[in-house]
């Protein structure tokens, strides 16, 4: 479209402009990465670096050598995320299968009930949940964090929609062959909706890894913090946070995501946007 109006050169110019704007959009990350290479003494020197002038990893070394459990926090984030993905998907796939394929009496009501829970933000229901968890002694514990995130009506909904498009005949013929529902669910239907499952994995990973709210409320000791919470706490304990070191910590947390994104980019973007559209 643009080509026809502006001519080839014009179209190219516009594309370049958008690219330049995109670069501007990306600069905060360049800044973050470059500043993390600066020594604390020059943290405030202007103009700032956008590209590292020298590859000085001292700040990173300080972080990893200090008592602060940065690596521990990364491990916590990973553990919580992976456990949540596994448990959430297991529960959701089974429920989605039952609703989409078995279609037992009452399954529609159950689905509607689940869907209605999307209207309840965690920011509101957290109060009774906190009280409940503290009575059970699960506050300030990673299992507690995982348990709260097990139920996900969006996941069940997406999986159900996807399973609904699997022809019933497949299920029927498997039943005739004597397969149990369990076998059909996990052995036949689930593999058929692998793309959806993969998309859900991406979405859940993103949501849990980046989550700040739930850990903020539930976690209060260093060893159990996840990355977003922990790095933020690093910032200001008694005002001894140091700008370059903090940025080094953030870079440390963002780097793995960047690398994953560089490789799986097309897939992640398409997955996330298609999930939004289908929902």
């Amino acid at each position: 479209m643009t080509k026809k109006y502006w001519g080839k050169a014009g179209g190219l110019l516009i594309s370049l402009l958008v690219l330049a704007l995109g670069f501007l959009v990306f600069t905060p990350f360049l800044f973050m990465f470059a500043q993390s290479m600066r020594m604390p003494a020059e943290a405030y020197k202007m103009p700032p670096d956008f590209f590292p002038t020298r590859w000085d990893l001292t700040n990173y070394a300080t972080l990893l050598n200090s008592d602060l459990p940065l690596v521990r926090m990364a491990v916590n984030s990973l553990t919580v995320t992976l456990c949540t993905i596994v448990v959430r998907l297991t529960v959701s796939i089974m429920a989605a299968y039952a609703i989409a394929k078995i279609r037992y009496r009452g399954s529609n009501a159950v689905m509607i009930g689940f869907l209605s829970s999307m209207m309840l933000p965690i920011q509101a229901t957290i109060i009774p949940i906190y009280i409940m968890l503290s009575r059970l002694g699960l506050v300030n514990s990673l299992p507690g964090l995982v348990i709260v995130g097990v139920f996900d009506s969006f996941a069940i909904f997406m999986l159900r929609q996807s399973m609904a498009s699997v022809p019933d005949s497949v299920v029927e013929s498997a039943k005739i062959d004597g397969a149990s529902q369990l076998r059909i669910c996990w052995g036949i239907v689930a593999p058929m909706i692998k793309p959806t499952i993969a998309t859900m994995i991406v979405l859940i990973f993103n949501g849990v890894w980046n989550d700040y709210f739930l850990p903020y409320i539930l976690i209060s000791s260093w060893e159990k913090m996840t990355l977003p919470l922990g790095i933020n706490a690093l910032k200001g304990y008694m005002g001894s946070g140091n700008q370059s070191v903090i940025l080094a910590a953030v870079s440390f947390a963002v780097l793995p995501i960047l690398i994953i994104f560089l490789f799986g980019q097309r897939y992640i973007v398409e997955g996330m946007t298609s999930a939004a559209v289908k929902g």
Partner: protein
Amino acid sequence: MKKFLSLMLTLAMLLGMMSISMNALAEEPIVIKLSMAASDAEKVSCESAIARFEEKYPNCKVDAEFYAGLSWDEIIQKQLTQFASGTYADVVYIAIEGTQLMVNYGLFQPIDDLIEADKDYFSPVPESAFKAFEVNGKYYEVPFNCNDMCIVYNTKMFQEAGIETPGQWTVEEYLDALGKIDAYYNKPDTPNSEKVWGVVTGETPYMWAAAYGTSVLNDDWTASNITSDAMKEVLQFQYDLVYKYGYSPVRESNTDEVSMFCSNRLATFIAGPYILGSLKNNNFTDWDIAIVPRGKENGSAAYGVGGLGMMTGCQHRQEAFNLMKEFCSIELSMTQATEATSLPLFEEAANSEAWLAQSPHINVFYDELPNASKLPSPICYAELNVIMKNMMTNIVTKAMTIDEAVALADQEIAAAYEEFEF
């Protein structure tokens, strides 16, 4: 529904059985559950205190949980919320800001008798450290880390700008010194991002209020004192630092005084001994300590203390107290002196080579303590802090005039007190 109920019942039974069997197992050793909040530097001294305790009393074990958070208030808030909602521990670290709340919630038990019995053991510790934890005439905590606020100043800057070593200086003399710094390092057209600042206004007005001999609350912390002329004078001083003299930038939520100080962008700032570790981490050595300049004759330093208290449900009082003693001991004080994590409480440690070697005038910290005034720590401490921070922001960002900001703060403090009806 039935399935759910039966599941719940089974869960309840399982939990019940587990706790019974755990109790049975806990015949020996005696487990003291410790809930501690410490910076990473202090953690070392905490762990050695625990080790000493377990060595002296082999039939006791300590189950320690360390808290952390974004800021001091957040840590206290998280602890309080957890304890109020039912989390249990035997010995809890709570700073003075939260003591009243713990006592009024009935979570702490008085330990007067235990302190009396060990009077001699505690004699080298200044009385003020214990008095901080006095509520309604009873004592509730054993002090652990005491921090009184003094000025940390850049010795090289002071030298270059021709300022003489500060002694018992007044606010006028202080402003004079800052003026010299400004004149020496800044030109009229230096942009803010390159300027060298003298000081940053306080996040809260407590320290300067103490230096002016007044406080944001009345004497027994039951009502606000913020509208008094004395307080208004303090606030005017803060305002002037930014707008009349230009020695201070406008403070923001991520203003990091230590970073600025260590990059030679800030000449002085107020802190307690807890800051020394950060200075070391930044490899910064051109610093020394001075008293907070007095605004009035009866000014003093503000101080806060963190200590260990005993929760009401604690069964093994003497053992728990023995653990608390390890946190207020000569060994711990010596660690505090060498590691410079907070003020060493035992006189011997405060006079030790290790401590005094940190800087020429580090003794100022210990000298200020006997006459220091407690940080206002009423029962609505968390709210008070938010109100004070908002008030200071309103004033230094010119969002409100001092009178307006003060009136609003007064109102909000009254409302905060009302909410805590016991």
